[in-house]
């Protein structure tokens, strides 16, 4: 009765382990299917006219010359859209954003009009023929002055708005924290700025909209990390019936949060297809991507730590000024306007904490939560890890020793922080000690001391981070009223092959591989026999998508649990096949056998055929072998890690070279160590980029100065070292397989390690702090005793 099940090998595990990716065979042949690869019959091309000014009234728009051009099919302005009630759209933070500006423009490169033409060159040519008359308004560029009474009000579209205020927010206990500060031996203070950054995925954003006027069906191929959430928002914005909208996210060329928001270009393409009756493609160019789509960070943080003179951290306090740009486009759970910044107490056991925050509008592109930040944990971790080093310098204590003294202990988990976050599990000290061992920490410090004697600048920087990922429990978390649970469906075909359908969507993380491994681990079907379907709202169950490192914590849990549900049914069918009771069966990863008589067994493949075949099934059991669930996470998961960065700074040119980077990550149970290592590597490169190179900057008129990859510098293979990675494993107690998620850990954890290393290198110059990005000019300034904030 049994068939031989394939034996797992090291190269081909049935379940968890290193497994080469199922995505790769098509991608290494150039046979991926990215949005811009899609060609539909009769497809037209859309290009967007953007404002040259950051803040200006639109006096008039003359589109007649553009409309007269051969090949131009339509030219549409904000006024035209207003006629259809489509000039404005909701953001993911319950604000509104102009699809095309009607009254005035509020950031440079804001969308003003669009052209639809027969090819992309003609569409771009026609933009130059649109004549727009603007009337200058003084822009609000400096976040620190945005709330001054004399500055122009940006959001005149909001009724009764008399200032540029977005929200105030606080967390923790102000009075208790003040009491601790009043009695502390040591208090350190430092302004810490996380400048505006941008995810800049290699594939820019775009879509192909194909709206069938007869059936009312909209097919939208789109660069989206969250196809289901987008579908619902389109239904709400455009009034289209949701069952007539199909959002397809084909291969996505990197997301990093950039592809979570809904951008005006998507809406323009849908409207164009609706108006013209043909498929319409819109693809950004690189400038459009950098200067208009979801930026990240932009926090000015006043940090304070209170401690004993022996180095016990007692309290952490911060006041934050947050630049949200011209529209509040933050993509975070609605009850968390500052994302998960509340975890700014980091990995330390402290007595009190308090944060106050003010968010303001400025004449800059909207965004705020993007770029692998786990909903603002990048900012939180950077603040606390920079401040701990400021304290170490004040106390003249080794920064590793200071951290070891204050880390939350293993027996304190689950640990509730003073701002109300319950860290599910952790074992921090071994991770830090492992990183120190891999780095040869003591030897590095000896080398540094010798080099300082010789006038050479070598720095060693540490960071220890705790992430909070897997949003989230639906009692607390939703986006635009949509609960952050995720569905998963598993079908086992008669021959024992399977298809699993996910609500989340890979942008390179390898879901087609790891989700097959999760199912394989639970039911013993080889991963190559499991097809993973994702990125298509018509063919997958509802869920909120991939961002905030939530795929494994939420959807991965759903995949494990739906497989267990199928396995439970398989066990009942097996009991009928083997003519024993369910309780007399034991599971052997791929087969059920009779307890005490392993020769009597049936494989999952046998059971699948029986479930679909002829003959009776046990009473009350329907045919087929499939299930669907929707997983609502009990808590977030809390991955953590210890990072050590070693830099050399050229005293003559102030150039920083990252010599080594050691990263020890703990993301709980590991599904595929190869993919985990890859996720960590990518995030480390991001960290080096943000710390040393990447910044979206503006001049005083609000002109964006980072509009191409010549100005917005991204690390290449020459600026990045060969990463040294290690791991510890502390499973999540509430996740079905103990996995915690890892996609953003390194992006969150690495920037402070790099900055701490550079500041450490500059210690002979008396430098206590320097703000990112630590370009040679900024490092040189610091060496001269000057400090120029990047904002």
């Amino acid at each position: 009765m049994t068939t031989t099940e394939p034996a797992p090998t090291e190269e081909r595990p049935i379940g968890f382990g290193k497994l080469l990716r199922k995505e790769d065979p098509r991608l290494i042949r150039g046979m991926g299917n990215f949005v811009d690869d899609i060609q539909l019959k009769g497809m037209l091309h859309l290009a967007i006219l953007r404002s040259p000014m950051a803040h200006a009234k639109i006096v008039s728009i003359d589109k007649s010359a553009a409309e007269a051009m051969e090949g131009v099919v339509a030219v549409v302005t904000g006024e035209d859209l207003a006629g259809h009630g489509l000039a404005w759209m909701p953001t993911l933070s319950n604000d509104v954003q102009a699809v095309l500006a009607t009254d005035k423009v509020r950031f440079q490169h804001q969308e003003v009009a669009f052209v639809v033409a027969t090819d992309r060159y003609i569409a771009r040519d026609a933009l130059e023929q649109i004549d727009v008359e603007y009337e200058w308004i003084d822009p609000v560029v400096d976040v620190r002055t945005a709330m001054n009474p004399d500055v122009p009000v940006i959001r005149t579209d909001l009724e009764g708005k008399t200032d540029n205020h977005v929200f105030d927010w606080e967390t923790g206990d102000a009075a208790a924290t003040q009491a601790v500060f009043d009695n502390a031996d040591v208090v350190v203070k430092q302004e810490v700025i996380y400048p505006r950054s941008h995810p800049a995925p290699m594939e820019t954003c775009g879509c192909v909209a194909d709206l069938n006027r007869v059936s009312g069906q909209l097919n939208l191929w789109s660069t989206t990390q969250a196809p289901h959430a987008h579908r619902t928002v389109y239904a709400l914005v455009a009034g289209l019936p949701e069952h007539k909208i199909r959002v397809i996210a084909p291969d996505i060329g990197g997301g990093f949060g950039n592809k979570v928001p809904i951008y005006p270009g998507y809406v323009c393409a849908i409207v164009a297809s609706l108006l013209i009756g043909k498929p319409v493609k819109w693809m950004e160019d690189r400038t459009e991507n950098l200067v208009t789509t979801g930026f990240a960070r932009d926090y000015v943080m006043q940090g304070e730590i209170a401690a004993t003179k022996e180095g016990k951290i007692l309290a952490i306090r911060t006041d934050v000024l947050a630049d949200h740009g011209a529209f509040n486009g933050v993509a975070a759970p609605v009850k968390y306007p500052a994302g998960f910044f509340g975890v700014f107490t980091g990995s330390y056991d402290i007595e009190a904490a308090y944060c106050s925050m003010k968010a303001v509008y400025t004449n800059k592109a909207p965004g705020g939560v993007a770029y692998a930040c786990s909903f603002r944990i990048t900012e939180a971790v950077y603040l606390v890890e920079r401040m701990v080093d400021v304290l170490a310098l004040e106390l003249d204590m080794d920064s590793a020793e200071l951290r070891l003294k204050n880390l939350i202990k293993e027996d304190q988990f689950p640990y509730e922080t003073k701002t109300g976050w319950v860290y599910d599990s952790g074992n921090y000290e071994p991770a830090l000690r492992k990183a120190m061992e891999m780095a040869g920490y003591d030897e590095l410090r000896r080398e540094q001391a010798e080099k300082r004697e010789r006038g050479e600048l070598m720095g060693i920087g540490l960071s220890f981070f705790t992430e909070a990922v897997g949003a989230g429990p639906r009692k607390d978390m939703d986006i635009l009223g949509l609960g952050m649970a995720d569905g998963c469906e598993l079908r086992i075909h008669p021959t024992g092959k399977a298809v699993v359908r996910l609500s989340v969507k890979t942008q390179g993380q390898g879901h087609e591989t790891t989700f097959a491994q999760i199912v394989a681990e639970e039911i013993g079907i080889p991963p190559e026999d499991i097809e993973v379907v994702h990125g298509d709202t018509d063919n997958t169950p509802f869920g909120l998508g991939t961002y905030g490192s939530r795929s494994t914590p939420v959807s991965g849990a759903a995949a494990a649990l739906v497989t267990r549900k199928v396995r439970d049914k398989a066990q009942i069918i097996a009991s009928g096949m083997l003519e024993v009771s369910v309780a007399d069966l034991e599971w052997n990863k791929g087969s059920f056998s009779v307890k005490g008589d392993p020769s009597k067994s049936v494989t999952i493949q046998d059971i699948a055929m029986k479930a679909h075949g002829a003959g009776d099934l046990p009473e009350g059991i329907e045919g087929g072998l499939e299930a669907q669930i929707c997983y609502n996470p009990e808590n977030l998961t809390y991955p953590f890690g210890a990072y050590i960065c070693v830099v050399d700074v050229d005293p003559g040119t102030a150039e920083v070279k990252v010599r080594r980077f050691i990263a020890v990550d703990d993301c709980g149970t590991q599904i595929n160590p190869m993919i985990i290592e890859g996720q960590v590597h990518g995030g480390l490169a991001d960290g080096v980029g943000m710390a040393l190179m990447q910044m979206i900057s503006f001049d005083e008129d609000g002109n964006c100065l980072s509009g191409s990859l010549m100005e917005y510098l991204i690390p290449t293979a020459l600026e990045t070292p060969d990463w040294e990675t290690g791991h510890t494993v502390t499973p999540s107690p509430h996740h079905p397989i103990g996995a915690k998620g890892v996609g953003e850990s390194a992006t969150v954890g690495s920037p402070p390690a790099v900055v701490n290393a550079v500041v450490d290198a500059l210690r002979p110059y008396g430098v206590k702090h320097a703000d990112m990005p630590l370009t040679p000019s900024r490092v040189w300034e610091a060496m001269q005793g000057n400090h120029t904030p990047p904002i």
Partner: protein
Amino acid sequence: MQVNMNINGEAVSEDVEARTLLVHFIRDDVGLTGTHWGCDTSNCGTCVVLIDGEPVKSCTTLAAMASGHDITTVEGLEVDNVLDPVQEGFMQCHGLQCGFCTPGMMLTARALLNNNPNPSEEVIREAISGQICRCTGYSTIVRSIQWAAEHGTPVSVGN
């Protein structure tokens, strides 16, 4: 204007606007979408193809400039159902995640290995330094190219 070139061993002849970029010609006119476009400014290298065996950024090359030359795109790396060792190396060493920069990276790697079958890590990093990957942090790309150097004999491409 008429352009004539050899793409992956096949003669291609088309009438195009003089301003047509090679990347758009390859993708939209010839229909080989494995070559990607990423930045307009020669910074990202996702559009790299080989012209007469040398890596070139096709987003800043006119189709007309490629006329009369041999072009190799990612689709030309696999020959007679046999993968180029570079392609195999990228799979074996997790040298790709989203796969968007991968075609350009692999073509640069192929050109490098044709000229230098045993490059050092430093040489590999220099060779791919005109290209950006946002996913991998480059270490696994370096390993992938080293894998190809160890496992494959140089393949004549583009000549």
